[in-house]
Each structure stands twice: as structure tokens, then as C-alpha cells.
């Protein structure tokens, strides 16, 4: 399948800062196997030409609905999933060319926290061992005592008690487990933290605790976040800039406030208008999208969104729009919106 794809000639970056991470035309195609011989019968274009930059100290939010490729993008950047093609530059180094050792060294500076705080902690290890493991792998501590001291310090940083280090994951609530996941990621003093739906599994009151913690840590350690989530209100709250994804492509990137006030792409607009507002006195006009997200095995031709787009014209199914800088720092991929 050779659909024309958006690949921005210029880089959507903040002009005033050298990016910590640059992603160019990143693609990941998963093979779909079928038949009794498990032949490759098709490909899912999970990530289909994604490009963006993240400046040091900022939070880039990535939003989109199920299957838009946001989590795959996050994992490809760490090469937890091997990308099919594209470029990833982190602190000036070419991540795609790294061998096993170089990757491991790179991952000291780039860590990830996951959505499911139940599945991402080894149930047989104590919290001390889970957090300490990274310190040992990266040879950041010289003695057992030094490791324990560091673990205690990390637990306190994320709002847990020192005596928690002798306990096992099942003794903790969802919110506490997410704090453990954050402590584990922080153990190696990373520069970039990829947060993959970090609060989606948590109740709202606990969600707020974790969001506040992430904001505090960013300020304290000068962290940079790639914050992946489907909840637009959470992303809007925490992000400096936001990238909106649809069916494997970035359709819009803009500063958070600007995206929410004046979205350009019709998909971003519909997505924003669909978020329920917790205030019964506000009555908004909702842009209702028809139908479901199409199957990513056979994405629509041209602009992937044209089948649901309220302003689509005939040629939208022919030509894929490029991500263009429509306003300073505000990029969108649409033929008919300026």
C-alpha cells in the first residue's frame, strides 16, 4: 500500500530552543498474519510518518483516540518497539543507529512510565528491589547501603514512606503504584520522561495527586516530558505544546492554550468539543463526528480524516495534506483551514 503521506519539509520546532529530542518521519508498520501458514497478509500503519521536536524542559502532550499510534510512537522513541523507518535524534545522537550498549546508556537519560501500575511492577520484588534495580544496572551506586539511601530518598521524593521499600507491589493502591513507577524512572536521573497514559487508570482525586507530583518533579529536576494521553483536559493542563494524532499521523501541533482556544484542524476541533465540561451552566455547540475511526489496516486515502470530516471536499481523498506552519508555532495538516 502506498498512500501519499505527510512528511513536513521543515521541522515543527520552537525556534528559540535546540531540541532535546527530534523525531522525523517515524513509521512503524506491524505485520498482520493470517491463514494456516501465518503469512504476512497485510500491514497496520500504526505510526505513519510522525515528526516533532521536544525542547528541553517543556512538556509535549500527545493526544488522540484508541489506535491513533500515540503509545507506539512513545515506545518507538525508546526503541522498546523497533521502528520501521524514520529518524530519532536524542541529545544530538542518532538513536536509530545505536547498538545494544549505546541504547542502554541512552535509556539512562530517557525513561518511561506506563498506564497500568498493576502490570508494570514485578509482583515478586520488593519496592526497594524494583527501584534499586536500575541503580545497579547503570552502576550508579557502590554499596548496598548507598543503594538503600538512594531508594529512601526517591521514595520520599514521590511522597511515599521509607519503610515502603520492604513491601511488595500488591500492598499498594493504584495511585501509590504509579508513584513507585515514577520513583523507578527517576532513579537514573533521566532528562526525558515518556509518560504513557500515566493517570488513565486512576480515580480523579488520585489522578490530581499524580499530575501535581509530575509538575513538582519537572520543576525540581528540570525534566522534559512526552505526555501521552487520551484525556484532553489532562493533556491541556500539563502540556506546553500539544500534538494531536489521528490514524498514525500528527494532524496538528500547537502551544497548549492556542490549540484549545483556536484549533485549526477539524479533527482537533471535534475532539475538543466532545470533551464534557463539568459545569451544567455552560452549553456548547458540539461538533458531532459521524461513525468510527476507520480500520488502520486500510486507512482512507488522501487525508486519513476525510471520511469523517465535516468540511471535506472531493480532493481530500486524493491528496494527503502536509503538516504546515499555518501560524507561528502552530502546525496543522489540512488543505482547507488556514
Amino acid at each position, binding site marked *: 500500500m502506498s498512500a501519499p503521506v505527510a512528511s513536513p519539509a521543515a521541522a515543527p520546532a520552537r525556534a528559540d530552543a535546540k531540541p532535546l529530542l527530534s523525531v522525523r518521519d517515524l513509521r512503524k508498520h506491524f505485520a498482520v498474519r493470517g491463514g494456516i501458514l501465518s503469512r504476512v497478509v497485510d500491514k497496520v500503519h500504526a505510526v505513519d510518518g510522525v515528526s516533532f521536536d521536544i525542547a528541553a524542559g517543556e512538556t509535549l502532550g500527545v493526544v488522540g483516540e484508541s489506535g491513533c499510534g500515540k503509545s507506539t510512537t512513545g515506545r518507538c522513541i525508546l526503541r522498546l518497539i523497533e521502528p520501521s523507518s524514520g529518524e530519532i535524534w536524542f541529545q544530538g545522537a542518532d538513536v536509530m543507529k545505536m547498538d545494544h550498549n549505546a541504547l542502554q546508556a541512552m535509556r539512562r537519560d530517557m525513561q518511561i512510565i506506563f498506564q497500568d501500575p498493576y502490570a508494570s511492577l514485578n509482583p515478586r520484588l520488593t519496592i526497594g528491589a524494583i527501584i534499586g534495580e536500575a541503580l545497579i544496572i547503570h552502576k550508579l551506586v557502590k554499596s548496598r547501603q548507598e543503594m538503600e539511601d538512594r531508594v529512601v530518598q526517591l521514595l520520599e521524593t514521590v511522597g511515599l514512606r521509607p519503610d515502603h521499600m520492604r513491601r511488595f507491589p500488591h500492598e499498594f493502591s493504584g495511585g501509590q503504584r504509579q508513584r513507585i513507577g515514577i520513583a523507578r524512572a527517576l532513579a537514573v536521573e533521566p532528562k526525558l520522561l515518556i509518560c504513557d497514559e500515566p493517570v488513565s487508570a486512576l480515580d480523579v482525586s488520585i489522578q490530581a495527586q499524580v499530575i501535581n507530583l509530575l509538575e513538582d518533579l519537572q520543576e525540581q529536576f528540570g525534566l522534559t516530558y512526552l505526555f501521552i494521553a487520551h484525556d484532553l483536559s489532562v493533556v*491541556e493542563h500539563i502540556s506546553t505544546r500539544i500534538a494531536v494524532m489521528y490514524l498514525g499521523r500528527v494532524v496538528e501541533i500547537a502551544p497548549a492554550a492556542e490549540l484549545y482556544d483556536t484549533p485549526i484542524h477539524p479533527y482537533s476541533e471535534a475532539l475538543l468539543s466532545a470533551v464534557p465540561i463539568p459545569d451544567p451552566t455552560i452549553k456548547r455547540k458540539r461538533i458531532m463526528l459521524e461513525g468510527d475511526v476507520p480500520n488502520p489496516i486500510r486507512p482512507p486515502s488522501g487525508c486519513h480524516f476525510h471520511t469523517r470530516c465535516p468540511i471535506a471536499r472531493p480532493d481530500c481523498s486524493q491528496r494527503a495534506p502536509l503538516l504546515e506552519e499555518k501560524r507561528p508555532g502552530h502546525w496543522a495538516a489540512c488543505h482547507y483551514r488556514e
Partner: protein
Amino acid sequence: MTEPLLDIRGLKTWFKTDDGMVRAVDGVDLHIDRGETLGVVGESGCGKTVTARSVLKLIDMPPGRFEDGQILWQGRDLIPLSMEEMDKIRAKEIAIIFQEPMTSLNPVYTVGDQIAEVIELHQKLSRKQAIAGAAEMLRLVNIPNPQRRVHDYPHQFSGGMRQRVMIAMALSCQPKLLIADEPTTALDVTIQAQILELMQEMKERFGMAIMLITHAMGVVAETCQRVTVMYAGKVVEEAPVEALFGDPRHPYTQGLIRSIPRVDRSAEKKQRLEAIAGTVPNLLDPPPGCRFAARCKFAMDVCTQAVPPLKEVGPGHFVRCVL
């Protein structure tokens, strides 16, 4: 005041476990009037789902049991009814839809068969008429090509479409009350908007009441007339939706509303979220007094001594707090 459609009084649904008795629902009072939408909100483990399932007696007993209370359906207590008598009420008078539409549909039958089964059970119709009725229901919930889709299996539908099928099935006997247990939680936001709109449309068409169980305050604000807030097995506040959001009185409700980031307030951006410290109490051994006291920033000595009564602070606005 006319008699409410559903009136739950002092309901206690407890579960026996190896560790002791879990007081999942511990003295809940709530009512729903004809044609209204009541939101029941609260976080995981607050007892909202158990309350909903208690109404239809969809609780496994044992380990569950009704410890106390009444569930009055149009004046008649459902708790002493036999399973046969409940079958006449389920689907026909009170229907329920669940969070996960895939696991609530049988994967080996076509959706038409499953909807027709409900119709046949409650209306004396032939199989053919029932299948035609099923197709008509699919059309009502805006499923394209209903005549063809009625012969499809659940896996051939997307998540949003499956929830439409569930709604079609639930409404096929025109119930007076639809219990919707987190109907949109598993769905994407644009699909959630479609399903909420559909429920609103169906409510107007059939004139039924809706009990909407959810943890999402935004969904409540946009769809409900009245709201009951639950915490750790008890109702802590009940109010008309404008009063609940405009003047929340219980510290837990206030915390819930203020802990959500607001998309519509980008100007006041970067304001810190008001998190509620701590976690929910263990319902095996709930604390005496107010169950929120341990997390409440206004808590006083009196709060830990006795459970505060539900008192009226405005028209139809009740709060369980000493303040």
C-alpha cells in the same frame, strides 16, 4: 409529590469474604422520578455499581447479601421477590447496560438473536417478528444497514457500535428505567459524545428515566438533572445538578469537582489541581463517624465519632456533613 419510580431506602448490600464482611453499600437512600436522569457519581469502590446491580438483584448471593433496606419499584419492594418475579421486571420495566459492551454480549449468537430473545421473552411474538423488531431497534439506535447487521456477530461491531447494540437490546421492551453503568467509560471521547446523544434521544422518545452511574463529573454535568454523590458505601450529597456544581457542600464533592483539569479554562492555566490527599478507607472495617474524615481538610473531633445525618441545605439539596 407523586410517588417516585424507584425509591431505595437504607439499602445495605454486604459481601462475605475470607477477611470479613465488606460493607460495599452501607445505608444508601436514593430515588428516581419518572422521566428524569439521575447521576450516581463516586470513585472506584464507592458502591455505585453494587447499588445499581442491587436494584435488578444481579448480585451473586452468596457472597453478597441484602443486610437491610428496601428497594421500592413503583411502591413495591423488590428485595423479597423470587427470581421468577424479578424476570418479569428485568428488561421489561428496568433494563441495564454495562461498561464493557464486548463482555456483556454473547459472542456465539448474532446480535439479532440476542435482541430477539429479549423481545420474545416479554412480548408474545414469533421468531420472525422478533428478528424484525430487533432490526427496527438497531435502526433506532442509528446502526447503518440494520437489516443486514442484525445477522452479524458482536465481534463484527466496533466498541461504540456494540454499545449501541446494548442500548437497542435494553430498550427493546420499552423499560421505564434504564440503568447505565459507566456506559461510555470504555469508549473514545468522540464516540462517548455519540452515545450520550443517543441516550438523550432515546430518553425523549420512550420517556424513560435513566440512572447514570459514572465517575466522570463532566458527563454528569451535561446529562443529568439530579446527582447523588457516593463515598465509601454511603451517599454524601444529593442535589439538582446546578446546585451540585454551583454550590457543592460536602468537602468530598468540592474536592471531586476541583480536582478535574478544565479544558474550558485555559486562561487560568497552570493553576494547581486540588488533589484530595490519601485514599479511600477499607470497607472491611470502615472508620466510625464520617467516612471521609481521614481525608477531609475540615475534619473535627466530632466527625470521627458519629456518622453525620443527611441534612437539607436547599431545595432538594442534601448533604451528610456536620459543617
